[in-house]
């Protein structure tokens, strides 16, 4: 299973961040969320935390989304030493999406009102 992201449908409301932190930590704090939304002028980019990487990469290519240049660190899913997201703010412990357990029942998908996130079978 995977979470399919339709970034053009995203409105930047960040309810996914809220429910993710609430489901995992029982408090609300977007900084403890395993999904973050980058709010741009033309579109928003929901990005889900992937595996932890130990080193910062130094070969940043130019990433284009819809003809707009986006910071490569923003579309990268890794929790990494140079990024402020996907880690516990107090301890720095890296965070990763776990699909809210087994069987997968990601709460961000449930709380996504504009249906930018959907749970789909791997193809």
């Amino acid at each position, binding site marked *: 299973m995977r979470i399919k992201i339709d970034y053009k449908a995203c*409105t930047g*409301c960040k309810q996914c961040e809220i429910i993710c932190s609430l489901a995992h930590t029982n*408090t*609300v704090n977007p900084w403890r969320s395993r999904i973050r939304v980058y*709010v741009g*002028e*033309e579109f928003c980019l929901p990005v889900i935390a992937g595996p932890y990487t130990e080193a910062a990469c130094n070969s940043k290519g130019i990433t284009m989304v819809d003809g707009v240049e986006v910071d490569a*660190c923003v579309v990268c899913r890794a929790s990494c030493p140079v*990024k402020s997201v996907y880690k516990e703010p107090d301890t720095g412990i890296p965070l990763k999406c776990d699909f809210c357990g087994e069987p997968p029942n990601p709460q961000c998908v449930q709380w996504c009102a504009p249906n930018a996130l959907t749970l789909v079978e791997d193809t």
Partner: protein
Amino acid sequence: MFGWKGKLLRIDLSTHLIRTEALPPRLMKEYIGGRGMCARILFDEIDPRIDALSPDNKLIFAPGPLTGTGAPAASRYIVSAKSPLSNCVSSPCCGGYLAANLKYSGYDLVIFEGRSPEPVYASICDDRVELRPARHLWGKTSHDTEEAIRAEMKSGDGLDNWALNAMGIANIGPAGENLVRFASIMADGGRAAGRSGLGAVMGSKNLKAIVSLGKGHVNIADVEGFRKAVMAFYQEGRDNGELRKRRRYGTWSLPGRANASKSQATYNFKEGYSEAFAKYEDPEVIRDLIRVRDEACFACPFSCGKRSRIKDTDYPLTAKGPEHETMALLGSNCGLEYMEDICRANYICNELGMDTITAGAMISLAMELFEEGHLPEREIGYPLPFGSTNMLRLLNEIALRQGIGDLMAEGGVAFASRYGHPELFMGVKGMGIPAWHPQAFDALGLQYATSNTGGSHTKSTMPFYEGRKDPARFVEFTKKDQDYISAADSGVLCWIIYHGPLWGEKLAEWLTYVTGVEHTVQGMDIVGERIWNLERLFNLRAGLTGKDDCLPPRITREPRVKNRVVQLDRLLDEYYASRGWDSSGVPTREKLQELGLEEEGAYVL
């Protein structure tokens, strides 16, 4: 603590002294948060008779107990101070991301006092609260200010793009710096705490911006119950036709509605139907023309905000809106025919930091004065008939206080009086009335006249829903609506979502889940009524009287729309009676006792 963070932040701009205080439990119980707490603090801490632009005024930013919890559409914060435009207590609210960040930083209220000797901006990042020099930001437009602050936080504080993106920023443009009496506070790329000129209060305090990034948390008392209730609410919202329309069109569906009910402000309220807007009655047309994307406030599933752009190299950036109020006041009310011109006017007001509603009222006033021959062309420098795009130039001149703009920046009463026709200014208590023509619905006239902050559409709900047009009951509904919105503004819930379609018990329900303290609908009504009466007492102490609950003569004497006038005198008598006030609009001792405000009443009784 659940819901609330239990702390307020007090920033003395005169001495640059910053301190935190515990939030008094009584405030939480009797005033909930947001607008309620603001009303209480302003009443307690400032003399209502002061000059609003003096250092004695206090400026409060207030999220509420629901802010940042994920309660749907609890994204807003109240900004409150004495208004330099209406001299009333004022409490505009604004969406975006700042409210949640203030809350995550750990503060339920941020109070600014005094006046900084030098321009500064306030940076509130968790425990780290600083006033930073802003001399280099002075004169910058709203968008440029946000950019410059982000760049500074990137190089100075080492924040990465994610952190910069999560921040909330509120700022003022040149209009606020120049103390234009209807300057707004702009936030997060085009949102505004617009009405009543608090941008000028911020400017008078030499406070250019407030920026916040919070990494703390908010606790919820009953997490399971809360999650279930939110899911149920989503379902309700999905099935609701009214909200589906809101999501797709925002307020763009309203010009059609207003034209159909003959209530679209047109030619300085001379008419209630705009022929030029006939082509925009189908909201799909506006959507195709200018929409870039749907834009939600923090935690709002309904995304009624629309980001827009026009094909014009002079206006390369996207803008928020224009909302219906802007389209009506800067558009049909000034006789503009094309959406592109309205977008340009909206863009100018946003960038310079001016309230689009009062600015529109000022321009249409100038246009009527010009057409009637009271305002000679040599005083403006160019012709200004209805429909002229010279108004774009005039908007700039108001914000920069150039030429005739300097006088217009003082507000409608001063400007219209200077040219001998104060009756042509379509405002209440000095504040321009919003888009809906009151002659189409008597209830609206009553709402505008009795609003505690001046001619405002956000202190009571529009009379569309649940029989609120019924003449036998709308006075009663007006009172109920005003109380309800006062309470919702204390949550702080967005009343655009919570009026009409989802009317009712949601506020009490969310508050109970989030704070763990039992809240009831009846209890909320009392809180709302308490806030309304306290604000009224503030205004009475400031020197206003029942005589200020009035409407422009055009509304009460000239039958312009549907061949009728608003019979305000009769309505006011009924309204005062339903509020438990005496015939001159002063709350009675019994009413104040009932609300626990007898001590406060001693100032005016």
